[in-house]
C-alpha cells in the first residue's frame, strides 16, 4: 500500500512537469493553431535562467592562497563571489543559496521577451502555413536554441541545487502513522507540485475570469468567428504566446534543482509532452493537465519492480502503450474536440 502511495507521489511531480509543458503547448496550439516543436526548448531556457542566475550570483574575483597549490603546483587561486564579499559570508551565502527561487524573477521578463520575439519574428508568419512547415521551422528553432545554450554552457548537466531550507525530505510515513522513513518525499518536489498547481490554477483563472481570457477561449473554440468580431486578435495571440513561454520557462526554472539542467533536456521532454497533449485531446487545457498527471503516475507505477518482473520492459513503453490504448478507445484523446487537427 505505502509502495503505491509513494509511486503516486512520484508520479505527481513528473506529472507536474508534463502538465506544465503540455499546458503551454496546447495553449499555443489552441489559440494560434501552431504546432510548436520549440516548446521543449522554452522549458530548457527556463532551466538555464536558473543556471545563469546562479552564475551571476557567484561571479567571483580570485584570491591567491599561498598555502595551497593547484593541479599544476602553482599557488591556488580561490574564487570569492562578489556577493559574498559585499554582504558577508552568511547573507551573501544565503543569497547564493536561494539562486533558483531568485531566478524566477529573472525568468519572467526573459521568457516574455523570448516569447514575444519568437511570435513576432517567426511564428506569426506561419499561422496560415501547413502544420508540416510549422513543425519544420520550430524544430529548426529548437535546434538553434539548444545549440546556442550548448555553446555557452557545455553539454554536461550543471548542478543547480535548491536552497538548503528545502534540501531535506518530508516524512509522510511518520505523519500518517506508518513506520517512520517508509514514505519520504523531498521538500523541493512538494514545492514543485504546489508551484505547478498554482501556475495551472492561475492560467485557468486568467482564462476564466478575465475578458482577455474569454476572448482567448472563444478563439480556441472557433478562430474564424473571433477574427470576424474585429477584435485585435493578433495582439492577443502574441500575449498568449508569451504567457505559454513564461509557463514553460517557470516550469523549467523550478525543475532545475530536481534534475541538473543540460542543453538537451528540452528535446527529452518534447516528445513526451506531445504525447501528453494528444492523449489529453488537442486544444483541450483540462485534457492536457489531466493527461500529464495520469501519464506521470502510470509511468511511476510501471517502474515498480513487481510490475517490471511481470511484464519486462513495460517501464520503457508504458506512456506510449497508454497513448495507443487511449487513442484507439477515445478517438480524440481524453477531452479533445471533433475536427481539430484531424486532417
Amino acid at each position, binding site marked *: 500500500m505505502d509502495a503505491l502511495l509513494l509511486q503516486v507521489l512520484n508520479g505527481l511531480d513528473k506529472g507536474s512537469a508534463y502538465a506544465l509543458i503540455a499546458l503551454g503547448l496546447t495553449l499555443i496550439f489552441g489559440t494560434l493553431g501552431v504546432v510548436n516543436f520549440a516548446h521543449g526548448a522554452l522549458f530548457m531556457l527556463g532551466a538555464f535562467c536558473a543556471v545563469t542566475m546562479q552564475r551571476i550570483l557567484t561571479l567571483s574575483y580570485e584570491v591567491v592562497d599561498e598555502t595551497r597549490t593547484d593541479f599544476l603546483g602553482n599557488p591556488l587561486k580561490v574564487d570569492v563571489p562578489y556577493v559574498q564579499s559585499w554582504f558577508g559570508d552568511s547573507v551573501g551565502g544565503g543569497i547564493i543559496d536561494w539562486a533558483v527561487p531568485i531566478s524566477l524573477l529573472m525568468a519572467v521578463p526573459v521568457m516574455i521577451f523570448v516569447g514575444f520575439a519568437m511570435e513576432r519574428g517567426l511564428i506569426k508568419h506561419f499561422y496560415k502555413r501547413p502544420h*508540416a512547415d510549422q513543425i*519544420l521551422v520550430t524544430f529548426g528553432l529548437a535546434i538553434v536554441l539548444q545549440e546556442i545554450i550548448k555553446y555557452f554552457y557545455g553539454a554536461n548537466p550543471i548542478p543547480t541545487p535548491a536552497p538548503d531550507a528545502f534540501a531535506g525530505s518530508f516524512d509522510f510515513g511518520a505523519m500518517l502513522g506508518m513506520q517512520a522513513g517508509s514514505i519520504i518525499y523531498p521538500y523541493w518536489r512538494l514545492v514543485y507540485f504546489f508551484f505547478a498547481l498554482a501556475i495551472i490554477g492561475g492560467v485557468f483563472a486568467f482564462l476564466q475570469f478575465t475578458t482577455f481570457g474569454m476572448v482567448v477561449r472563444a478563439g480556441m473554440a472557433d478562430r474564424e468567428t473571433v477574427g470576424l468580431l474585429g477584435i485585435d486578435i493578433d495582439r492577443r495571440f502574441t500575449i498568449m504566446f508569451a504567457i505559454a513561454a513564461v509557463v514553460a520557462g517557470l516550469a523549467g526554472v523550478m525543475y532545475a534543482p530536481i534534475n541538473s539542467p543540460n542543453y538537451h533536456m528540452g528535446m527529452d521532454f518534447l*516528445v513526451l509532452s506531445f504525447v501528453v497533449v494528444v492523449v489529453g485531446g488537442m486544444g483541450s487545457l483540462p485534457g492536457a493537465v489531466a493527461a500529464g498527471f495520469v501519464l506521470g503516475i502510470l509511468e511511476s507505477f510501471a517502474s515498480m519492480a513487481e510490475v517490471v518482473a511481470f511484464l519486462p520492459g513495460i517501464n520503457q513503453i508504458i506512456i506510449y502503450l497508454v497513448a495507443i490504448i487511449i487513442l484507439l478507445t477515445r478517438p480524440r484523446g481524453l477531452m479533445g474536440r471533433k475536427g481539430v487537427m484531424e486532417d
Partner: protein
Amino acid sequence: MLGLNRKDSLLFVVVICLTMFAPFLLNPFPEGSELAQFNAGYPDLMQRFVIFGIFAIGFNILFGLTGYLSFGHAAFLGVGSYAGVWMMKLLTMNVIPAILISVVVAGLFSVLVGYISLRRSGIYFSILTLAFAQMSFSLAYSVLTPITNGETGLQLSLNDPRILGVSEVDGSIPPANLFGLSMRDSTELAMGNWLFTFNVGYYLSAVVMLIAFYVAIRIFRSPFGMMLRAVKSNQQRLNYTGLNTKPYTLAAFVISGMYAGLAGGLMVAMDPLAGAERMQWTASGEVVLMTILGGAGTLIGPILGAGFIKYFENIFSKINESILHQWFAFLPDGLEDALVFMVYPFIGKGWHLTLGIMFMLVVIFLPGGLVEGGQRLGRLFRRRRKTDTKPGAGATEPAE
C-alpha cells in the same frame, strides 16, 4: 520511355545520370586542395545518399500523396535492418536474401502498425505511429537485447552458423557480396589531381534506388496515386464516391514501409550492423525533415532533402578548428583568428546549429522546399531569356 510521359522520362534520365556519374559530380575538388574537404564522392556517403533517398522517396509516397504524417517510419527501417543482419548471420552473405527479407519483414510490420494507426487521422495518427516506433526502439535497446544486441547493435560474429556459406575466412568475417562481388570492392580512377572511386556497393544501391524511383514515378502517375492524392484532398468525397479509403491508405502505408525496409536492407548490405538508434524518433523525424526540406509531394524533392541533410551530417561535422586555420592561413593573423572564431561555432561540433538554421531558412523562404528553390531559379532564368526574345509571354509552370 518505360511508360513514362516526356517530362517524367526527362526527370528519370537526369536522375539516372546524376546517380551514375555521382563519383565524378560529388568530387569536384582536386585532392589535396583546401576545398577537398567538401568532396562527398567517397563510397560510404554516396551509399548513404541513395539509401536515404530510397527511404525518403518511400516516405513521400505516404506523406506527399496522402498527407498522413507518420512520425514512426524509422521503425520499419530498423526492423528491416535487423531482419537483414539475421539473414546474413544465419543464411548467406549474399545481399539479395538479406534485402528481400528486410522488405518483407518491414512490410509485415507496417501492415500491423498501419492497420491500427490508420484508424485515426491527423495528429492522432502521427502520435500513434510515433508511439509504435518509440516502443520498438525502447524494447530493442533493452529487453530485446538477445535479438537486437541492444545498445551495440546487431552485428556479425565469427561463429555465426550461416547455412549457405562459411562462418569465417582466415579469421575474418566474409564480406557481404552479390554473387561473389564484394560490396566493399572499389575501382579508382585517377585523372590529373582528381581521384574518383567507383564502389560496387554504391552502384548496387544506386541501381536499387533508380528502380525504387521509377516505381515511385509510376505510382505517382497511376490511378492508385491519384486516389491517394484524392485522400489528401477530400476523404469525405472519396467515401461518397464509392471508394474505401482505408485500403488505399493502408496500401500506401505498407508500400512506404517496404521502401523503408528496402533502405534498411541496403544499409545492412553495405555495412552489416543494425543499431537500435535507427528506430528512435529522431531518425523518424529526420526522414520527415528530408521530405519537407526537399519538397513534399514532389518526385525529386525527397532525394534532394536526403542528400542535403546527410551532406551536412557527414561533411560539416568533420571540419575542425585546425582545418579552418588552414583555410584562412593566407589572411593576417588577427583577421585569421577573428574569422576562425566567427565560423567555428557553425562547423565541427556546431554542425547541428548550421543544420537548424538551414531548416529555418529553407522553410521560411522556400515554402515548397528545395524543389521550389530550383523552380524559382529556373523561372527566373527562363523569364530573363523570354524577356530577351519575346516580352510578355507568360508561362504557366505545371506543378511537379
